[in-house]
């Protein structure tokens, strides 16, 4: 690549970076207190339905080997 092309690429990249940063800078932001509260509420609301968190009866565990049974 010629020195001219290399420099042109650097400028293009720099322009693109600035455009991207402008987009990112202009976005709306939420307060950390509200964001945290929402996360905490979601966890609380769904806690009882989270098997790895609250556990569940062994009989409901599809991965637990059933006890052997005899065919009479």
């Amino acid at each position, binding site marked *: 690549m010629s020195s001219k092309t290399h420099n042109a690429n650097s400028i293009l990249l720099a322009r693109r970076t600035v455009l991207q940063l402008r987009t990112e800078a202009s976005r709306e932001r*939420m307060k950390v207190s509200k964001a*945290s509260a929402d996360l905490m509420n979601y966890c609380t609301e769904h806690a009882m339905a989270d098997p*790895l968190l609250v556990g569940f009866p062994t009989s409901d565990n599809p991965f637990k080997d059933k006890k052997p049974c005899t065919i009479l």
Partner: protein
Amino acid sequence: MTTIAMGEMEQLRKEADNLKDQITAARKAMQDTTLQEAAASINVVGRVQLKTRKTLRGHLAKIYAMHWSTDSKLCVSASQDGKLIVWDSITTNKVNAIPLKSSWVMTCAYAPSGNLVACGGLDNMCSIYNLKGKDGNVKVMRELAAHTGYLSCCRFLSDSEIITSSGDCTCVLWDIETGTQKTIFAGHQGDCMSLAVSPDFKFFISGACDFTAKLWDIREGTCRQTFGGHESDINAIGFFPNGNAVITGSDDASCKLYDLRADQELITYQDSSIMCGVTSLAPSLSGRLLLAGYDDFNVNIWDTLKAERVGVLAGHDNRVSCIGVSSDGMACCTGSWDSFLKIWN
């Protein structure tokens, strides 16, 4: 460079620095508290003790990736023994053992429909396999080739679209039917290592070796947000179940939670006793637990709101390379360089 060009470069550099300062200040202005403070009144969850319920044996070399099917029963794993195996995790039976053209596989994915699986790696391609072919044989349906670097991760949006991340620093949205690139997501300045799709399928996040995570709008093709803070490569990434936060895992031995609406890091999951990289991560169904795989052969379970370690899964004899929690939240699957997958709950 010409004087004019140098002038413009200098101007652009200054503007970029100004904008970065603006973003930092805007984020700080939102810090009326911290997640740590907000969660001060809730108790840490009790010790989480999961047991290995199944061991899936069959691969002959390191396992690099696994992905659950949406039915919470089947899962697919990829190993450098050159095979993709579809397992029935309950019976431990191998439903399909698919030989790969290239054994240097680094990722695999299960389509939400259950009809297709995909994989890729050092061949720079994403290969799509139809599991439900007419004659019962599993065949390559498409080979998606265009990346100029290794395929690190792939995730289906549907049977007709898939997103890939690559060592060429880009992510791509593909039309599977035509085998063409629909959108190229460029912006990372290091290898893209991992990606995750939002629960509403509108966005995806990527983690890269430039130490940042980026949020992308799938339909617009644009990068909406960039998150920094990690001090090394991001290897793993996932969405918090409500889609409003992102969790990353890095070679810097920490995981971080970034809130999308506050546009910043809320908390870091790290411990001075942990000095090795995070390879993989998955949140539990409610988001309260974070299961993260590490280079030291363990999985650490974190309370996501309190940033305290509440459990360990020790059972592999080598690095834990991949982890996934099933859709119904009933089980966690770990895959390791020791060639085994384990199902825990």
